[in-house]
């Protein structure tokens, strides 16, 4: 189905990689630079990752907005550029529809919100069954109950009733556009970083704090990997850091992306997100997604 992803996956593994001469030359340049920059601490000269993409299956709508991102390391506090990844413009350089982002935020707040505000009607307020005074002859206004909404201490008419759900579904493609817009905004504002993987060397939270300070990330950081099982070290390190959170790619949402200042994606997560979002933008049965939301739909 996704030819170019397979190809890029092939490129990921150095064993089956075949790059053109120019690419290989650039790659050797970059790798020599990186080893020089890294100093004596990291002595393993790994070849730089250059992940070009094949846009044959999903030709970008926007013709000339290629996007690239550095692949950074997380095995040391010091920043090294391990390579470049090409990003699909339809996902990472889409029209930044801030209004759709706002609609997504509002939807994410509301669809799970149940209002518990509650008032009693005149029937529910205690007492008030007796006619307070006779209908006629007192010179007073006629009343049938001391709990009528006109009375102090009476019932409330048209008040809030608990529980009131605020559930609704945003149209499917507004949700998709919300994700692409937010990713594009994050990339445009330099708040999106790509890391090679989530393997950090220690369980120490101080390492992550230093790394975030050194790279000028954050303060709050959301780290996304493809799988929901993160490496052990990063789990321990982020356990007591409230402002650094881990999330699998399938849980990525607009609210979390905007709640955190910096979004950090692993290479796998970038590819997974691209594949899923491009699939949604090009799926054959898109019309079936346009209908009204039904509670029993899959």
């Amino acid at each position, binding site marked *: *189905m996704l030819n170019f992803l397979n190809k890029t996956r092939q490129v990921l593994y150095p064993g089956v990689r075949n790059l053109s001469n120019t690419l290989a030359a650039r790659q050797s340049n970059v790798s020599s630079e990186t080893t020089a920059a890294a100093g004596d601490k990291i002595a393993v000269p790994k070849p730089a990752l250059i992940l070009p993409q094949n846009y044959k299956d999903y030709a970008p709508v926007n013709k000339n907005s290629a996007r690239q991102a550095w692949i950074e390391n997380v095995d040391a506090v010091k920043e090294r550029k391990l390579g470049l990844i090409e990003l699909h413009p339809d996902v990472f350089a889409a029209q930044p529809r801030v209004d759709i982002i706002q609609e997504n935020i509002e939807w994410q707040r509301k669809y799970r919100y149940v209002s518990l505000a509650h008032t009693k009607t005149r029937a529910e307020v205690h007492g008030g069954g007796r006619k307070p005074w006779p209908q006629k002859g007192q010179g007073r206004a006629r009343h049938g109950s001391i709990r009528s909404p006109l009375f102090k201490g009476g019932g409330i008419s048209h008040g809030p009733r608990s529980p009131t759900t605020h559930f609704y579904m945003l149209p499917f493609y507004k949700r998709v556009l919300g994700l692409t817009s937010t990713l594009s905004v994050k990339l445009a504002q330099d708040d999106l970083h790509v890391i090679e993987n989530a393997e950090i060397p220690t369980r120490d939270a101080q390492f992550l704090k230093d790394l975030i300070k050194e790279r000028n990330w954050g303060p709050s950081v959301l780290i996304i990997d493809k799988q929901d099982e993160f490496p052990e070290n990063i789990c321990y390190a982020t356990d007591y850091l409230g402002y650094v959170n881990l999330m699998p790619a399938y849980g990525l949402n607009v609210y979390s992306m905007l709640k955190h200042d910096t979004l950090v994606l692993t290479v796998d997560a970038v590819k997974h997100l691209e594949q899923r979002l491009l699939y949604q933008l*090009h799926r*054959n049965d898109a019309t079936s997604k346009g209908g009204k939301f039904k509670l029993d739909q899959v």
Partner: protein
Amino acid sequence: MAASIKLMTQTLLQRSLTALSQRSLHTQPAIFSSFRSSRQVQPLEQYPEVEVVHNPPEWKYVERLLPPQTVPQPVAKADYPSGWKPQTADGNSDGYFVARTKNHMVPVYLHTRHRGQRRITIVRRIQGDIWRLEREVRDVVERARNGKLCATRVNELSGQIHVHGDYVDVLREHLKSKGF
């Protein structure tokens, strides 16, 4: 094998169900409604003997019944009798570019409002010099209107041109002839 396990579990469920229903015969618990609506499992001897065929030769007939995941790419042909054409221009010579839709169609649409009294033709997905395309569109439409003036509206942000009146076919043909 899997089918027989399923049947066994179903019979077990059935037994527990009958135990339940003996207590309250006439109440219909909602959670069992799907079981009630389906046919009850008969004694297994009544079912015919089946065999599970791996790699069946008929699998190609199944495959052609499965829809493609994404919209297929059109294949290059010598001619397209329906009048549809693949996109050939890349916008370098024109200064503007009109992208095709996901379904490989030219993005020209008709919007009708006021019970069909106001018809507006909309050209979407325009990139580049939208004002140049607007001049062209105006030219083409005015020629179709025998020289009468034509009203247009340009939305540069969303890359759209709105043309007063129904000129969908005219504009679509024009864009196709330019290779978009």
